[in-house]
């Protein structure tokens, strides 16, 4: 079964220093254990994972917003 975008992003968040706690679309990235630097690292990892380019100024606050942002970029 192919992982959803949400699952893949959760794995990236965990790999980039996020907490092991369960993530939901409403979880704030800061609450997921990502400080500003780790957020950039997760964004860079997402770019590589999904083959897209994310503007630094996009500033998604929650996991769900990051999923939406990435899915919108993948459609383009």
């Amino acid at each position, binding site marked *: 079964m192919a992982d959803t975008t949400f699952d893949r992003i959760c794995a990236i968040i965990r790999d980039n220093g996020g907490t092991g706690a369960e993530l939901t679309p409403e979880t704030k990235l800061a609450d997921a254990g990502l400080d500003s*630097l780790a957020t950039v690292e997760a*964004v*860079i990892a997402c770019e590589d994972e999904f083959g897209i380019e994310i503007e*630094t100024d996009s500033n998604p606050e929650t996991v769900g917003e990051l999923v939406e942002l990435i899915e919108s970029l993948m459609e383009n």
Partner: protein
Amino acid sequence: MAFHIIGTGSALPEQRITNDDLSRFLDTTDEWIFSRTGIRERRVCTHETLDDLAVAASERALAAAGLAATDLDLIVCATTSGDHLMPAEACAVAERIGASCPAFDVSAACAGFVFALDVVDGFLARGRARRALIVAAEQMSRLLDWSDRATCVLFGDGAAACVVEAGGASPLAIELSTTPDTDALSVPGIAGTSPFAAATPVPSALAMKGQRVFKFGVQAICDAVHGLCAEAGIGAADIDHFIFHQANDRILTAAAQRLGIEDDRVARTLHATGNISSACIPYTLDALARGGRLHPSELIALVGFGAGLDVGSCLIRWE
């Protein structure tokens, strides 16, 4: 016409400032700084001037090259934090080491050394010089807001130099680029006291959009290495040493991962110096050379990136 590097040298101020020292007047800790930057300590000018450091680094590079100052045809200094707006830092170096060749500065922030290298390569190619001194010297401590824990912990002072001579295998590839963005990383110029100035003067303190610069740095390194490899017709696996600008250890790690290169081929000196802007690359080159880590015919990729946003990359062969 091409060049080869025949001597390197560097100089740091005496005063070490550890992360614990900073935590005495900033709300920060050694663990916080080290885990986010890879920096343990930096050197900061107290009694030394930047001229002192630039001269000491230059004299060491000349000694390593076995040359006298009078053998030089050109001195180019990379700096954005010189002791004087004029004359150029390079002129102060020329005066103190006893050279009488043309001397001027290049301003390209943290990419300054590679920009200077390309300028010098042009002088050699046009037959206007055979031996040149490139010195990168920065006193970042005077550009910092020492109450801003997000930036002042990142930088340090220091100088490093190399002597290049016409003839040789370098550069195998060289590229400069600018992605104009004066907002990401900047230091306002001298405020002055003109009675006619309409704008309120702002202090000359460094301001940085950290996330933007971090991401740019990773992208810049990866694009530059790919560009150098394409121009030279080699793969990243053929490069023996990667000397990237030492802004943040996590930028280096992220770039190495993205490039698929072993982390231990990426040189690191920033744990002991912090970011010394244009001096990072020649300082690291000198550290590797003096540590016996460089061997003849090895390939070295240099990538500098910083305010501008400027990127300079060069592939050289150690001879």
